[in-house]
């Protein structure tokens, strides 16, 4: 059953689940919808795992599990799905995090504007659309999913978020829409260019990759795409929507937003910027590297400076996305593999961090660091998990983010010593913001407000356990990921016509050197 | 003979009509100015019709007149209702809808 539509199933299972949830009458209460949502996401995960096992990492084809059907002929748009290593990892990441988030935010939907039913329906819809984004191999289809994901997030924030949720929701939507519309111009530009070609108008990535846009056209189209992705990622200086959003969203929403949706930005840079406009990408590299480095340091400083936990985490993500973008644009195997790995690992570590702090905040009812102190004494398990999540976020060796960050640093350093030297300061700043956060919340004399705080419950631990487990396992044995990522990296290197610099001293040459 | 004088005259009439529309307050007068513009057009039409030596222009002139007549009917009806409710035919009084 090689022509089994794996991706379509993964895409539509959650969406159908969402529709079912909506269709449920209100009288069934909130328990059934929750179980239904969890079940759907788990089934999706199973499908995803089976698919991942069937993925053949040695095949020469760029995409696997491909499906293709003409959608809008006069636009040259297709319903075309397929994943390469990068897409696969992100699809799986989405499938893993969805049930985790649903379990973790079991009660977050209860006191929102609408029923919990709607909350989980939106979540499932979001999962489906996100999978669609990562699986789309047609630019038009990608764009459709790209924009469509905004709506569920918008309602999740606006309906269930914190004090300024309406404002945050609007800010998020408009910021993303602005980026998306700029991208739309480039998307249409692609159509016009491809229509000129003898092949006729098409949006298939594989077809577009064959086209050669002129230097200027290519660069303009590239910019259109890049701006949208930079906003999504988010990079300095278009990052300010993220802290405001996470500050007001529920932890679950923040996880789906930062761990999954923001990856669309970096994923898009890889899949579209580098894939379709190699020349323009090389042309833009120096500037982008500078911005990425700024994002790393700037985000870290902002994180150190912020007293609001979700904002703080948001800023750490700005810093981490700086690393990812850096890894992508230094354009060598180490950087690219690191960046791709980073996308997955950052998803895990940030998810853990958002969820555990979410549990903390829901107990104390305040998101301000300064309202905590000495929690470790009353809730050791929470504190322990918090610490592990934090350490993974500062990419401690032995936890999965380390490998990705290290590879990015190596890649960057071999691209430019200066850039590498600046980027590496990130590891010190990361230590400061994480440990400073831990110190101020968990250690010191226990404050009265948190004296009778309950430790994590079984459900909460159950939600976090798989994430932490993955973080540790992948920290020592990332092979499963790398084995699918590396072929994709090689493909990208080919596209951008770059080769890894040879080492100054090539060990293989030494032997014959000895015989002289 | 050259058509210019006729066209110039029609242009002048048209302009007068246009200015009238802008300057006069009374709905009836404003509307008469519009009629003036239409008739200026008629003059132009007829002139060109003669210059081109076909009848289309003159036919058009008739149509314009007919349409103008129809406009009068509709226009007066509207103006009447307004006048009766507001006791004034000034177009400036009707300015509730704005911004």
């Amino acid at each position, binding site marked *: 059953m090689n022509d089994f539509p794996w991706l379509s199933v993964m895409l539509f299972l959650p969406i159908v689940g969402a529709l079912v949830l909506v269709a449920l009458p209100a009288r069934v209460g909130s328990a059934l919808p929750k179980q239904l949502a969890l079940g759907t996401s788990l089934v999706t995960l199973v499908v995803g795992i089976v698919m991942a096992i069937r993925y053949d990492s040695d095949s020469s084809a760029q995409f696997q599990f491909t499906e293709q059907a003409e959608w809008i002929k*006069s636009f040259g748009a297709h319903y075309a799905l397929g994943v390469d290593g990068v897409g696969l990892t992100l699809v799986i990441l989405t499938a893993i995090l969805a049930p985790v988030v649903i379990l973790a935010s079991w009660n977050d939907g209860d006191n929102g504007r609408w029923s919990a039913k709607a909350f989980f329906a939106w979540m499932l819809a979001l999962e489906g659309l996100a999978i669609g984004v990562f699986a789309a191999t047609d630019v038009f289809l990608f764009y459709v999913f790209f924009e469509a994901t905004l*709506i569920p997030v918008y309602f999740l924030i606006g309906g269930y978020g914190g004090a300024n949720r309406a404002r945050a929701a*609007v800010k998020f939507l*408009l910021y993303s829409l602005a980026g998306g519309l700029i991208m739309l111009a480039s998307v249409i530009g692609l159509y016009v260019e491809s229509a000129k070609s003898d092949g006729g108008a098409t949006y298939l990535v594989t077809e577009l990759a064959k086209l050669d846009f002129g230097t200027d056209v290519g660069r303009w189209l590239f910019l259109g795409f890049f701006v949208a992705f930079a906003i999504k990622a988010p990079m300095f200086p278009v990052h300010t929507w993220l802290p405001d959003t996470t500050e007001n969203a529920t932890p679950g929403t923040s996880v789906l937003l930062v761990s999954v949706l923001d990856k669309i930005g970096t994923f898009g840079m890889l899949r579209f910027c580098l894939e379709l406009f190699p020349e323009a990408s090389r042309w833009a590299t120096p500037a982008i590297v500078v911005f990425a480095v700024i994002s790393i340091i700037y985000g870290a400083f902002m994180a150190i400076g912020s007293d609001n936990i979700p904002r703080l985490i948001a800023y750490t993500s700005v810093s981490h996305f700086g690393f990812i973008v850096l890894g992508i644009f230094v354009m060598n195997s180490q950087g690219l593999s690191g960046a791709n790995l980073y996308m997955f690992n950052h998803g895990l570590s940030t998810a853990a961090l958002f969820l555990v702090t979410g549990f903390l905040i829901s107990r104390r009812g305040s998101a301000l660091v300064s309202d905590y102190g000495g929690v470790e004494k009353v809730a050791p398990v929470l504190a322990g998990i918090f610490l592990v999540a934090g350490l993974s976020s500062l990419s401690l060796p032995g936890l999965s983010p380390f490998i990705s960050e290290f590879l990015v640093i190596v890649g960057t350093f071999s691209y430019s010593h200066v850039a590498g030297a600046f980027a590496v300061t990130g590891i010190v700043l990361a230590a400061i913001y994480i440990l400073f956060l831990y110190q101020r919340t968990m250690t010191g004399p226990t404050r009265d407000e948190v004296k009778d705080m309950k430790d994590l419950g079984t459900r909460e631990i159950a939600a976090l356990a798989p994430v932490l487990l993955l973080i540790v396992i992948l920290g020592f044995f990332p092979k499963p990921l790398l084995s699918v990522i590396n072929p994709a990296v090689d493909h990208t290197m080919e596209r951008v016509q770059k080769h890894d610099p040879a080492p100054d001293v090539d060990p293989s040459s030494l032997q014959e050197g000895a015989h002289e | 003979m050259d058509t210019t004088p006729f066209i110039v005259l029609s242009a002048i009439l048209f302009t007068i009509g246009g200015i009238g529309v802008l300057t006069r307050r009374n709905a009836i007068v404003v509307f008469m100015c519009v009629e003036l*513009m*239409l008739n200026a057009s008629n003059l132009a039409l007829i002139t060109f019709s003669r210059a*081109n030596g076909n009848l289309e222009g003159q036919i058009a002139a008739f149509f314009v007149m007919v349409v103008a007549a129809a406009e009068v009917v*509709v226009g007066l009806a509207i103006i009447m209702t307004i006048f009766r409710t*507001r006791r004034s035919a000034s177009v400036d009084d009707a300015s509730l809808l704005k911004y």
Partner: protein
Amino acid sequence: MKFTAPHIEYDLLSPILIIVAVAVLGVLVEAAVPRARRYVVQVGLAVVGVVAALVAAFIVLGRINPTSDKPKLGYLVAEDALALDGPTLYSWIVILVLALLGVLLFAERRLEGGITAFAGQAAALPGTEGERQASAKGLEHTEVFPLLMFAVAGMLAFPAANDLLTLFVALEVLSLPLYLLCGLARRRRLLSQEAALKYFMLGAFSSGFFVYGIALVYGYSGSMSFDKIAFAVSSGSGSEALLLGGMGMLAVGLLFKVGAAPFHAWTPDVYQGAPTPVTAFMAAATKVAAFGALLRLFYVAFGGARWDWQPTFWAIAILTMVVGSVLALSQTDVKRLLAYSSIAHAGFLLVGFLGARSLSEINVGDINPVQAVLFYVTTYGLTTMAAFAIVSVVRDGSGEATQMSRWAGLGKESPLLAGSFAFLLLGMAGIPLTSGFTGKWAVFAAALSAGAWPVVIVAVLMSAVAAYFYVRLIVVMFFTDPVGDGPTVTVPSLLTSSVIAVGTLGTLVLGVVPGPLLDLLGRTAQFIR
């Protein structure tokens, strides 16, 4: 005494003829049928008439077998006064569908408690004994239906007109009934009458320009018919000044109708003041007819002078988008907001209109501007109809509650209605999976193919700005709590609900599977010359 009778293709013209006949019959009904039964008869007549016309239009469309790869270009009928080609017939069908929806809205009686939304007796003064009696007697102006039919007849003729005179007549035939309809609101009659007055005054003023433009163009080309004008343009005989002046003045007349800046001033006031069913119909159908006419006039007649008028239209398109989107930001009245948004959409349509290219430049299967614009007006028409229909059912004691603040918490009050309205708004904002997106894509693509990228950039930015006020309305409906007692949604009869349903469904379907329609247009959207 013998003469050669003019040759009229009654079969091909049947749609128009049916509508006119229905209109005339409607007038007779007013005279003959007793008041008690007029409503039923008029509505029945109108519905039957429109449906019949629709059927006829489809048959005519079939005559140019649009499904084949190389459809017949079309027919020139009534001594070449009308051109029945793909664009015309397509516009006819769209207009008739919208007209049908319009009739349904006009006929809605439940919202006002068993009586239509139109004045019981237009002649009776507001707030007087006469009016009170009129409403006590349950009087209602059933003339609105014949008026509507006349307007429809004009709209059908407008995009088909193949010479300037027919164009003018059609313009007036569609305008005059609308002037009247605007003044017939049952509630807030002062505003309604004011709207009528403004619309009429400015309409008459603009038609003055239009006629003078006809005169000048006639003077330039020595003929009224488009093909002769086109020939004159291509041969470049006669004085440029006449052509350009005439072209400009004709443009003024048409741009006034589509509500493009700087000729948009009437739109907000009239849309706000007019009875909502009228606004809905006007906003939707007029755009279709006017753009049909605009395309034919400037592509067929002035196509040769494209390089003369394109720059000006670039400026107008940009100005229109900016004015519409920016001014809408600060609106507090839903109807007025939609009015400004319609201005913005006129701007987007003009962007598509700027995609004009000589046929040689357009490869097979490319988006061509006519196709794009016609598709956009279709999507916009359906969406707007439904939107205004929803506006008409959100009410409080004093009739429709169009103040945006009164819409707060509608999402809780009636999720379904608010949900579909939100969906329509997202459609207007151009979010994917709605027709608004596919429409925008089409017009932008057309313009970009013609190299109008600066306009497209502005269009893109303005769509971002426009998104803000649509989103704001969604926020009001869903994320803000009502002040005092929230709005009440009067459950409408099947008539209005079906309009809402059709419009929303159309917005969804054309957003997800626009392919068939686009392909049809791609094959048939060719002007006969």
